[in-house]
């Protein structure tokens, strides 16, 4: 169903269905899919009360927003005043935010009903969904494979039909990679498009909240709701939000699609590479022109990203000290012990590892060799994109060199995980928009996907190309044993 969200909202507005029935459906779906562990907390009472208020407004003929009565999940690092925001960490059990994130405020204003929080890698650090203190999240497509991360639950919940759409956050691919692994659409907007106020910070120059949905139209609608300037975020873009929906049926005639063939020549699974070529052929047949482009610094994007992201994280996560919120050790004689023990006890291993790396690269004597060097490489990556987008309108790559990784792989090498981020981290370093679009299934029955990127604030052309690709690609099956959320049986 290409425009599920507007269809559901229209049904609520006209009284063809009720928000209560949609929310009850989402809650029932969550309960029956509990084995996936896609959801860390549910706010059933608040969600049902909100739904009833929306239904009453609909009956009274009051004007309702574009997401009227639609149940959604948001990642557990996005603050909500109802329920808790835990970042899937033992550091923040039971944390109750004093305010809604700006993106959540906009969702509620548009009539959406937040039914709970989605599981994630702890503090958004991970690409498998396995670092969560709430336990690993499953992939609806295969019990033997991870859903990706860090927005693991946001992607798995949409693929399992618990909700029709969700919000995630993307610092180095954390919306796009799980979207790809779970067969849903995921968007990392241009830096500054969505306010970061109320998103628990990981890498402040990289983080963006983004939508996950079952179609390009739904993702575009959700982004149009959450995008826009916010005086509460100094890095929020002060320009008008472009029209994301108008170009969805415009086609791709004359559009230039860049494919970095030299970069894709090694290290990419054949099934993944084949989907990139198939997408290029589909777009070409639809009237686009495919051009070969070069991203000479892409191979060093991942190491540069890990220096910058962990450096920013080491600073951002210093706020978790056992004093104002979060875990506090029961065993401290003085303030220094209080900080150091609370943090050692509260953070999981991957988070500690990244804080240590970030602290190391910022420490005296190493700053120039690592941090400043990585910032210079960031400039080179931005320059690469400038050249690429002089030659094309949309860049086509895979989101990840492979389909979903196997679960619980004890021999998994963290360095291999970092390397697998090669196609996603560059968009965060450059601040440009990028999205993951499902294409089909590989030989193992796992979702395949392609990634589209564009110049900053050119989301409309991304959605335009993705919508054409989606139409010509055709309908895809839902995960075995699950159906997407359509509210039909609600």
């Amino acid at each position, binding site marked *: 169903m290409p425009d599920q969200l507007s269809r559901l909202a229209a049904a609520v507005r006209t009284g063809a269905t009720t928000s209560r029935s949609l929310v009850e459906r989402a809650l029932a779906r969550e309960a029956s899919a509990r084995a996936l562990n896609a959801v860390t907390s549910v706010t059933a009472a608040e969600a049902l009360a909100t739904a009833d208020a929306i239904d009453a407004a609909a009956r009274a003929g009051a004007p309702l927003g574009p997401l009227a009565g639609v149940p959604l999940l948001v990642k557990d690092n996005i603050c909500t005043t109802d329920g808790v925001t835990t970042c899937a960490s033992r550091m923040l059990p039971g944390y109750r935010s004093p305010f809604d994130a700006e993106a959540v405020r906009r969702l509620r204003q548009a009539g959406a009903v937040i039914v709970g929080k989605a599981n994630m890698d702890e503090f958004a650090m991970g690409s498998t969904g396995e670092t969560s203190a709430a336990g690993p999240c499953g992939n609806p497509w295969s019990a033997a494979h991870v859903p990706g991360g860090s927005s693991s639950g946001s992607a798995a919940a949409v693929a399992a039909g618990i909700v029709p759409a969700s919000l995630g956050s993307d610092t180095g691919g954390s919306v796009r990679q799980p979207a790809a692994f779970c067969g849903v659409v995921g968007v990392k907007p241009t830096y500054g498009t969505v306010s970061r106020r109320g998103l628990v910070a990981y890498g402040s120059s990289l983080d963006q909240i983004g939508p996950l949905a079952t179609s390009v139209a739904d993702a575009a609608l959700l982004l149009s709701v959450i995008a826009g300037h916010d005086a509460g975020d100094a890095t929020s873009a002060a320009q008008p939000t472009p029209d994301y929906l108008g170009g969805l049926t415009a086609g791709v005639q004359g559009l230039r699609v860049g494919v970095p063939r030299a970069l894709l020549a090694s290290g990419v699974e054949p099934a993944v590479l084949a989907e990139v070529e198939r997408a290029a052929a589909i777009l070409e047949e639809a009237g686009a022109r495919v051009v070969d482009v070069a991203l000479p610094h892409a191979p060093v994007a991942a*190491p540069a990203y890990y220096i910058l992201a962990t450096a920013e994280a080491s600073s951002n996560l210093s706020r978790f000290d056992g004093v104002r919120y979060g875990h506090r050790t029961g065993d401290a004689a003085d303030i220094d012990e209080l900080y150091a023990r609370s943090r050692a006890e509260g953070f999981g291993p991957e988070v500690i590892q990244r804080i240590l790396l970030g602290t190391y690269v910022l420490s005296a004597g190493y700053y120039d060799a690592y941090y400043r060097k990585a910032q210079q490489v960031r400039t080179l990556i931005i320059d690469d994109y400038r050249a690429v987008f002089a030659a094309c309108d949309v860049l086509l790559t895979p989101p990840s060199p492979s389909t979903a990784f196997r679960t619980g792989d004890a021999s998994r090498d963290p360095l291999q995980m970092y390397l697998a981020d090669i196609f996603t981290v560059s968009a965060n370093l450059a601040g440009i928009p990028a999205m993951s679009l499902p294409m089909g299934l590989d030989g193992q029955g796992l979702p395949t996907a392609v990634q589209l990127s564009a110049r900053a604030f050119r989301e409309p052309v991304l959605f335009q190309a993705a919508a054409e690709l989606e139409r010509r690609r055709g309908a895809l099956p839902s995960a075995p044993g699950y159906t997407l959320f359509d509210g039909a049986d609600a």
Partner: protein
Amino acid sequence: MAIETRTVHAVATLARIDLDRLDPARVQGMVEQLSRVIGWVEQLSSVDTSDIEPTAHPVDLAMRLRDDVAVPGPGADVILRNAPHSDGSSFLVPQVVEEDTDA
């Protein structure tokens, strides 16, 4: 470059993380992992960055001024709701300043 265990402990002290609270085997795993990651990121040294300006932020940010108007916050009671220890108006921590014994 291999990172020594004592370097990791020194960094952990800077980061205010008490590694003695963790399983020693896990700490040893972290030392090895950090060594490998540092070795991996060192490939950046092969990139010619002479005369390249560093980028701290992906978009040009201009400081914007707003009217100097007080905006109400959530209130101390709401903020303190999340505090592990408070007396209702302040966060409580172990004593930081020693008492003046001469007084």
